[in-house]
């Protein structure tokens, strides 16, 4: 009876030794260069594609939409509902997780799968994350080049609108459709606030140290923004509804943005993904705020 377990134990030891040898063998070369990356963060997925590591992505989150190539990559859930079983079945050698996904991090650590912790902060952290990620996957040169290119493009946009009067701008990223209720706007920090600042707008809620501000009607009236930028993303707004949704603001005629016809609805996922497409987002902000600078 005792012989069987001991034989099993021997077999297990043999397997472990073989695995360990294999791991050290791999460690010399490819352990630093993950080949099967799962990215649960849409922003890092886009970063990987930009630095030329798109073909190394084995899985993405259910929220990934860009670039279009992600449609072919298996989806493994998102921030709140990662599908661990499916994730493990993809045999990843690096998983990019949100730093707040503590349970998932623990499970991956137990499974000895390397992780890359993603922390979402302001605009400067986007290119910084790209560089660190590029180094982590052994693509330092490409990542640094891509990051530098983004920084140059952002600097060019900033230079283009420099010296222009900076309109007091309300940046709305959520509102109940058809009415001025439940308005969420960008407050004094976060990458949207930074982008607005870069694009030559003065955030009308810049003094509030909150990333998201739940705006009341009274607050819109008293803050009196000169421009209102309203972001729409996902599939939340059909183009034929644009005019109707813009007209909703006419209920507040004393707001300068309404009176001077400077309420703009911008649609696109680039506004909610703090990845390489921030350049596109910044330019759209800048073109809207300062059309004269782009003639």
């Amino acid at each position, binding site marked *: 009876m005792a012989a069987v377990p001991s034989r099993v134990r021997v077999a297990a030891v043999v397997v472990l030794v073989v695995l360990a040898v294999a791991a050290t063998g791999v460690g010399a070369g490819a352990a630093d260069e993950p080949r099967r990356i799962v990215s649960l963060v849409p922003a890092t997925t886009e970063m990987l594609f930009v630095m030329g590591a798109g073909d190394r992505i084995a899985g993405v989150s259910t929220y990934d939409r860009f670039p279009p190539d992600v449609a072919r990559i298996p989806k493994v859930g998102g921030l709140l509902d990662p599908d661990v079983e499916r994730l493990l079945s993809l045999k990843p050698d690096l998983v990019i997780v949100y730093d707040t996904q503590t349970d998932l991090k623990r499970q991956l650590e137990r499974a000895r799968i390397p992780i890359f912790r993603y922390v979402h902060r302001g605009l400067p952290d986007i290119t910084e994350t790209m560089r660190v990620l590029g180094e982590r996957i052994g693509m330092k040169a490409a990542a640094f080049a891509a990051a530098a290119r983004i920084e140059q493009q952002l600097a060019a946009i900033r230079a283009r609108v420099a010296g222009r009067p900076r309109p007091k701008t309300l940046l709305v*990223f*959520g509102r109940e459709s058809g009415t001025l*209720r*439940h308005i969420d706007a960008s407050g004094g920090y976060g990458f949207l606030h930074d982008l607005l600042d870069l694009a030559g707008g003065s955030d009308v809620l810049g003094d509030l140290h*909150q990333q998201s501000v739940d705006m009341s009607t*009274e607050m819109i009236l008293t803050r009196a923004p000169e421009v209102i930028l309203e972001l729409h993303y996902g599939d939340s707004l059909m183009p034929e509804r644009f005019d109707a949704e813009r007209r909703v603001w006419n209920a507040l*005629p004393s707001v300068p943005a309404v009176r001077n016809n400077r309420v703009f609805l911008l649609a696109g996922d680039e506004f909610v993904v703090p990845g390489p497409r921030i350049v596109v987002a910044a330019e759209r902000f800048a073109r809207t705020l300062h059309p004269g600078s782009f003639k």
Partner: protein
Amino acid sequence: MAGFGTLALAACLFAPLVGSTRIHLSAVFDRSMPYADNIDAQIFFVARLPRVLAALLVGSALALSGVVFQALLRNPLASPDTLGVSAGASLGAMMAITFTFSFSLLGISAVPLASFAGSLGALTIVYGLSTARRRGTSAIVLLLGGVTVQALLSAVIAFVQYLADFTQTFRNVRWLMGSLDVASYAPIGAALVPMAIAWAGFATLPRVLDLISLGSESAAARGVNVERTERVALVSASLATGAAVSLAGPVSFVGIIVPHLVRLIVGADHRLVLPASALFGGAFLIGCDLVARTIIAPLELPVGIVTAIIGGPVFLWLLFRRA
């Protein structure tokens, strides 16, 4: 009663004058300035007055429904949420937000419309249950049925929430905390229609509710058509609840606490309890909304948080002071 009337009137008059910004009444009614330029007038007429009116309507509707449900179900823990009408309204709103409905009707946007439709759906189910039994509805059966419908709808709400993405989930959660910032009069006008029907129903109830509270047999012995009364009570209270929740979200606490507070003060006679609850419920919610929009100005708290934080301790104090 005069006291409750004065309180409600004072709340209506005082609340629009106070807010995160100072406004001048003289400027508000200054006809020489075009309305489009008059910020004070717009703050008064667009930001504050609709809120106060919405608070008055929602507070009184929830308090009245609470009184009626507590009498109808002969259960002091009953509230507008008990029978699932409120959950039905929430489900409608969650679906409108999550599946991005974009229809509108007479200036009313998709979320309140879907929410009211949801409350009607829940009412239909509960009403169907109440008529399934031939000889009048036993309060306990209706209560159990309603609680089950409520649990069922809550599960569907959770399922819809699960389908939602981040931003929608955030918006759903915010909607569930309640908000009276209606920003126009159209939704108030729309809510008035079902509420008026409900009021007409409530007006027939005071005397018979007193009798029914003592038990349906003794009420029947005194010539009350128990079955008919219960239907009127159920439909009126459900319509009022549905209209209130679709206008402001499920503002917690008003519907359960205000009736008890009022009974502690005026006694159990429904001829007093019903109108006093309506007035006090309205005044209470106006007061809570005033706190919600000023206490952390320029930011605002969701009103549902304030109702429970203020209402809870006040009620406990009244309860144990008497006991």
